[in-house]
């Protein structure tokens, strides 16, 4: 049977990037469908009724929601191609732990980017930098988080890289000065086809911010 894979996504989404990369790593042909988040499609609402969010991966008509769950699903469904998670249970637990930690960086980023007051923004910035330093320490001297091969934790984090210029501009700080090893790692990742194809253009993300800020104020 021919696999029909559709991805409901939004071009700047740090989470959508993860699923795009996983699909590209596995050489899976997919139909990318850009969503208008201010006017959500009937398909999106039907496929993710609980959260009504992107990305939604639809495989042969069946939806999978939440980006890291999609990455694991992709790895398990197409195991023959490039493995994304380690095969050893302890290493897998370790990878999942860091994927979960990276997801926990989101509230700090939310405060940094969308905080109404500068006190909130400063607090968000500090949280983000502290957590990124913890992640940097975990990376250490390795090429990728899993060692020599690109995998789950790299995929979990690299989507944020498309927003680094925006974080720096709005937070008025240099991520490279704070976490040089992370920047070096990111530049290595971007050399991979799957990543280069999937990351949004940093400049376009920056251009989008004022619009997103307006929308957030309305919410």
């Amino acid at each position, binding site marked *: 049977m021919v696999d029909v894979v559709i991805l409901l996504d939004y071009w700047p989404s740090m989470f959508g990037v993860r699923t795009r990369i996983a699909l590209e790593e596995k050489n899976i042909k997919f139909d990318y469908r850009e969503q208008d988040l201010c006017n959500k499609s009937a398909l999106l609402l039907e496929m993710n009724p609980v959260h009504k969010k992107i990305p939604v991966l639809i*495989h042969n008509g069946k939806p999978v929601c939440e980006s890291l*769950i999609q990455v*694991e699903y992709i790895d398990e*469904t197409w195991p023959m191609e490039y493995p994304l998670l380690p095969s050893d*249970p*302890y290493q*897998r637990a370790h990878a999942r*732990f860091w994927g*979960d930690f990276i997801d926990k960086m989101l509230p700090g980023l939310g405060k940094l980017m969308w905080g109404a007051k500068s006190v909130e923004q400063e607090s968000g910035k500090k949280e983000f930098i502290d957590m990124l330093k913890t992640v940097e320490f975990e990376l250490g001297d390795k090429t990728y988080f899993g060692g020599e091969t690109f995998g789950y934790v790299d995929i979990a984090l690299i989507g944020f890289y498309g927003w680094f210029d925006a974080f720096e501009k709005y937070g008025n700080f240099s991520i490279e000065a704070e976490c040089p090893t992370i920047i070096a790692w990111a530049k290595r990742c971007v050399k991979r086809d799957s990543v280069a194809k999937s990351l949004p253009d940093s400049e376009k993300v920056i251009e989008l911010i004022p619009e997103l800020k307006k929308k957030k104020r309305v919410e």
Partner: protein
Amino acid sequence: MANEVILLDFWPSMFGMRTRIALREKGVEFEYRDEDLWNKSPLLLETNPVHKKVPVLIHNSKPVCESTIQVQYIDEVWSDKNPILPSDPYQRAQARFWVDFIDEKMYDAQRKVWGTKGEEQETGKKEFIELLKTLESELGDKTYFGGDDFGYVDIGLIGFYSWFHAYEKYGNLNIESECPKLIAWAKTCMQRESVAKSLPDSEKVIEFVTEIRKKFMIE
């Protein structure tokens, strides 16, 4: 090699309960160590330096943190009996989705029910009941969330059941009248030895919540 399994935990933790249940489902002998969260042990701080939280599963001296990650780890290491996650990748993704939903929403909502007052509590109660109804709708007419077999989502949720009497007392709620099917499901789960052994007595939880409320002066 002999398996040495230690669980650093805190008896009322709904998260620790998940790991206890998983270990018991698999018939794994483990050493349970109750932690004083106001005076964390050096072992806890050493094995979970990032979050400094319970539960921590230590298997042959190697720590695994985060309850859902521990449950998956236990399922993968002791794969010979009582599978916890389904074998089909799509069913696995669905199970992970619902546990992620529980993790994202339940803790904060239930905290508001017993830990706040006035308008904040009323909002929290409404949210909490809506969450339970969403879960009840997902359960439908099935015995367990996965169908006929007790599994990952049941383990993800059942720990909160030991806190239901505390929510009812301090939130002035009647959960059974709102979600009768969910209560029926919980009672079915409680008939399993692994669950009955792993959940604390509801009365003890009420005593604990009463103490905490006094400590944080929520009256």
